[in-house]
């Protein structure tokens, strides 16, 4: 049982690990004249989705649109925009879809709170089963029958 559980856990966690955008290959950035901005760009773009190859981050993608967007972001950073402003620039154009970490708002409540909800349902069901089992055990035992059973055991 224990081995089975470990295997299941591995089976479910491996694809998640493989998909993590942090593992995506980093593109050698051609325009590295300002290392500070390039670092900020890479940090930011790792959490952003490339709109063309949707499972790649904006940092790792070679798609032309990704290159254009990196150019835009680089330009905005050079002109002194904060990371938050850059993200706003992208979400007004492409929607929350560009964000790998969806924001917490009414449409995403179920997404974020779903796991807690399901844990609650599972936990509730578990507690109820345990209670029912305990109730089943605490059925009063007939004294006479108990004595008879003891006698039967003695006889052996």
């Amino acid at each position, binding site marked *: 049982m224990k081995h089975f559980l470990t295997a299941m856990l591995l089976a479910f966690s491996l694809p998640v690990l493989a998909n993590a955008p942090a593992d995506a290959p980093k593109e050698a950035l051609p325009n590295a004249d300002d290392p500070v901005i390039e670092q900020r760009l890479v940090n930011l773009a790792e959490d952003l989705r490339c*709109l063309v190859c949707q499972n790649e981050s904006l940092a790792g993608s070679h798609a032309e649109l990704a290159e254009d967007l990196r150019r835009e972001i680089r330009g905005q950073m050079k002109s002194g925009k904060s990371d938050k402003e850059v993200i706003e620039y992208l979400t007004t*154009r492409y929607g929350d879809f560009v964000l790998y970490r969806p924001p917490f708002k009414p449409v995403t409540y179920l997404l974020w709170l779903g796991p807690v909800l399901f844990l609650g349902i599972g936990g509730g069901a578990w507690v109820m089963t345990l209670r029912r089992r305990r109730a089943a055990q605490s059925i009063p035992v007939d004294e006479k029958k108990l004595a008879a059973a003891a006698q039967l055991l003695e006889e052996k």
Partner: protein
Amino acid sequence: MKRWLPLILFVALVGFFAKGLFLNPREVPSPFIGRQAPAFTLPLVGNANASFSPVEMKGKVWMMNVWAPWCVSCRQEHGFLMQLTQAGALPIVGLNWKDKDREAAQLLTQTGNPYVAVPEDLDGRVGIDYGVTGTPETYLIDQKGIVQLKHIGPIDADVWKNKFEPKLKELGA
């Protein structure tokens, strides 16, 4: 009832998965629906002295079709756009997106030009302002300059009938 509960849950789950399986991941919802179409001014293909700006289309229901000569599915769509223009459906503006080799003018004289204007977005900035992810993409814009509809991928008779025509009726155009 209790015996059937796992089955009911299972069927519900399968329902969700089936729905997810048939969703098109390319159909990214556009944040521009119901919002003002971004303004721009771009030179026209074949006539760099003239320019196009969406303000010129105020009062008309029109369509902005983002295309490029290097885009294969745009050629697939081209025939249908020609039909629309010949039928006088509505004015179509063809944003020529990232046409580095400047092939648009030649291609349009060869295959026919369904557009009322072909602004040239050489570096793709206007495309980014509209949230373009690839070509072709088409925006339906109303009399007040508000984006009413966005379609990703080529338009054909089916898409036109099921997606555009109902919206056009709603807009009274």
